[in-house]
């Protein structure tokens, strides 16, 4: 059994188990930690698929930044109490599971028809990235996708501003005129 098969069959069940854990855990913090495990396993899958740069980005951005943000908000809001409430929609849970299983079956049929269960990845992926994966990605990114890259930077700035605007407490802004008036007012 080749090594990458072993790695796949070790980490795929772990990622599935972590996803299940995320769904069934009552405590939201535990669910978030299971999600971190899942992201780590997906990062290993990137490594298997010859994407070491995305492996690093996945660890840093997803398992690092995004999940820390999640845990921060969870602890800030203190929503660690379990929310056990009766279903408000008739048969919501069974229907959701049935729909998900139907979707999975559909994808399986599509994968079988379009890719085939035993198709191996073609050779020659290394020739695309003789200088290394990050350099090859940078070449594609900055040559073919330069404009989307710049748009993405605008998106990030807008997101940062939006987060500040949305999350600040609604304190009325003090105008410059009021400050001047407060200064002129004699202190009693």
């Amino acid at each position: 059994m080749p090594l990458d098969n072993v790695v796949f069959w070790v980490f795929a069940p772990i990622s599935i188990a972590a996803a299940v854990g995320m769904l069934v855990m009552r405590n939201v913090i535990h669910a978030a930690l299971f999600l971190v495990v899942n992201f780590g396993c997906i990062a290993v899958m990137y490594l298997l698929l010859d994407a070491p740069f995305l492996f690093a980005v996945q660890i840093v951005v997803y398992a690092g930044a995004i999940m820390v943000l999640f845990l921060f908000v969870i602890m800030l809001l203190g929503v660690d109490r379990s929310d056990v409430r009766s279903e408000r929609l008739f048969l919501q849970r069974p229907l959701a599971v049935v729909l998900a299983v139907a979707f999975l079956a559909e994808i399986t049929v599509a994968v079988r028809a379009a890719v085939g269960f035993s198709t191996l990845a073609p050779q020659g992926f290394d020739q695309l990235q003789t200088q290394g994966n990050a350099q090859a990605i940078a070449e594609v990114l900055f040559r073919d996708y330069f404009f989307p890259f710049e748009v993405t930077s605008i998106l990030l700035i807008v997101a940062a501003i939006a987060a500040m605007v949305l999350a600040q407490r609604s304190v009325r802004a003090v105008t410059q005129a009021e400050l001047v008036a407060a200064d002129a007012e004699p202190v009693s």
Partner: protein
Amino acid sequence: MRTPIAYFLLLAALLFSMGTVGVLVNRNALRIFMSVELQLNAVNLTLVAFARMHNDLTGQVLAFFSMVVAAAEVVVGLAIIVSIYRRRRSVDVDDVREMRW
């Protein structure tokens, strides 16, 4: 690489379905959001798998873009959740009904 590409695609499909179940079943906005993250990751895995299958780095670049957009989306979404929690002391999506007809 001796692992068939289809395995990665099926793993991604399975994770995506689990994320779908999480979105459909949960009412806590944070849980729904985490399930959406799971779905995004599954799609990223599909993109990278197809990049490997077609010997084309464009899929990896797309996954990279998707990660950046996901980061921005998480920031805005969590800010919205915090702001909703401030207003009504709850992150239950059933409690937010101002925009319902």
